[in-house]
């Protein structure tokens, strides 16, 4: 078996074999999460630091649980309440954490490229990108793929529609790279202001009409309208208008295949990008995504921290 990566920065760098290995490893760890005693000794003695410069509940909790269920010591550092507020640079913070012999640094940052910047400067620790700016969120894409594989039995040949703020979505980019690598057809749709120019060069079909994008799709992934970003730089006139044209509802979901699944990276804005009827409907697999998130993060931590460089 070969897993040649020391860091997980994006799905863009992962080959088909890499993704298959990560998903298979995650399937093995799923069994642990279903036990009464959800703990295995695999990474005992390893230290995992969650370094979060941006708010997160799901991702941080998921990485923390993943580390703890493998007996690693998991520490959370958030930007507020740390020396970051005292003016320490990113590089100094990370070098200090590395000096404490952290094996893996899981990092979220509002600047695209921040985890990559660290990965190039750290000599011992591995870096996992837990979301950087508008760039990538690889663990989210991998848990999406695991969820799709579980429900559809395969990924290759499926049609996946991703709807919403494509321009500012790191999830959309990570999903796109990973789904294309695995041989799926990817459709992107949203208001023209939310579709970045040139995105079709990455191999996606681009639509401005949600109905066309959803038609006969096997999987519909709804992206969150990022209210915290809408404040400064508005790409849509009003939330109500957005909901009227781009929300997934009980009518337009009928255009997808009858057995299509509905996914969402969370947190949900009910009534904005997804109606409550669909969010709670039989086709939604949103909580499966959350469950699979822990298993996928266990797999990533194991693959990075479960081996050594010396042979």
């Amino acid at each position, binding site marked *: *078996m070969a897993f040649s990566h020391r860091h997980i920065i994006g799905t863009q760098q992962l080959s088909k074999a890499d993704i298959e290995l990560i998903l298979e490893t995650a*399937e*093995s760890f799923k069994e642990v999460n279903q036990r009464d005693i959800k703990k*295995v000794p695999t990474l005992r003695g390893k230290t995992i630091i969650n370094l979060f410069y941006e708010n997160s509940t799901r991702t941080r909790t998921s990485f923390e649980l993943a580390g703890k269920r493998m007996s690693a010591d998991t520490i959370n550092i958030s930007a507020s309440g740390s020396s970051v507020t005292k003016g320490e640079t990113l590089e100094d913070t990370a070098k200090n954490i590395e000096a404490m012999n952290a094996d893996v640094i899981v990092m979220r940052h509002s600047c695209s490229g921040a985890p990559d910047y660290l990965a190039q400067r750290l000599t011992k620790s591995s870096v996992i990108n837990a979301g950087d700016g508008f760039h990538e969120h690889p663990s989210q894409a991998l848990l999406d793929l695991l969820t799709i594989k579980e429900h559809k039995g395969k990924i290759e040949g499926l049609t996946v529609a991703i709807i919403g703020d494509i321009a500012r979505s790191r999830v959309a980019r990570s999903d796109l790279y990973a789904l294309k690598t695995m041989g799926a057809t990817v459709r992107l749709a949203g208001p023209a202001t939310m579709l970045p120019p040139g995105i079709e060069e990455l191999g996606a079909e681009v639509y401005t009409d949600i109905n066309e994008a959803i038609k006969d799709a096997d999987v519909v992934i709804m992206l969150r309208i990022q209210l915290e970003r809408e404040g400064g730089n508005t790409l849509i006139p009003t939330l109500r208008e957005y909901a009227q044209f781009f929300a997934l509802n009980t009518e337009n979901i009928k255009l997808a295949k009858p057995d299509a699944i509905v996914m969402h990276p969370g947190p949900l804005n009910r009534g904005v990008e997804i109606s409550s009827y669909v969010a709670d409907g039989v086709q939604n697999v949103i909580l499966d995504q959350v469950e699979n998130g822990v298993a996928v993060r266990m*797999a990533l931590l194991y693959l990075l921290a479960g081996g050594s460089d010396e042979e």
Partner: protein
Amino acid sequence: MGSKEKSILDGSSIERAITRITHEILEKNKGCDNLVLIGIRSGGDHLAALIRQRIKEIEGGEVPHGAVDVTMYRDDVGHGSVRPMGKTDIPFALDNRHVILVDEVIYTGRTIRAAMDALMDIGRPSSIQLAVLVDRGHRELPIRADYVGRNVPSARDEKIQVLFDEAHLPLEVRLIKP
């Protein structure tokens, strides 16, 4: 390359060894009530399926069987390259059951230690008994098998390989000299 291979057990010898082990298991446990079979991946699970089949033929009873992958419990995680993770599949409770743990070859005993830790995390069996097709010696832990197909004295640099066909039936046990 100068490496030599020697066949130690052929298919029918393995079948006979498995049949004898099955009789010993049934004798010691006075039947198959409350027994479960857990094979260690990979290879042990195929042998566990075979023992389950024999028990059915001899006693007429169905014994649940599952598989355990010990990678998560190995004592050498973090040494050498990262190992592929197999799946543990035990779709029944182990509490108050007599577990027959099945493996192809017992060597240092480290795999068995890992497997016992894995089982203890999943439930609280009444007992764990160990059945192996080959005991090649060189134990590094105070562990012994309850049921042994064949004792094969070996040197540390030799390898013992159990080959299965596509239907997971055992074909041959080989000793490979360096």
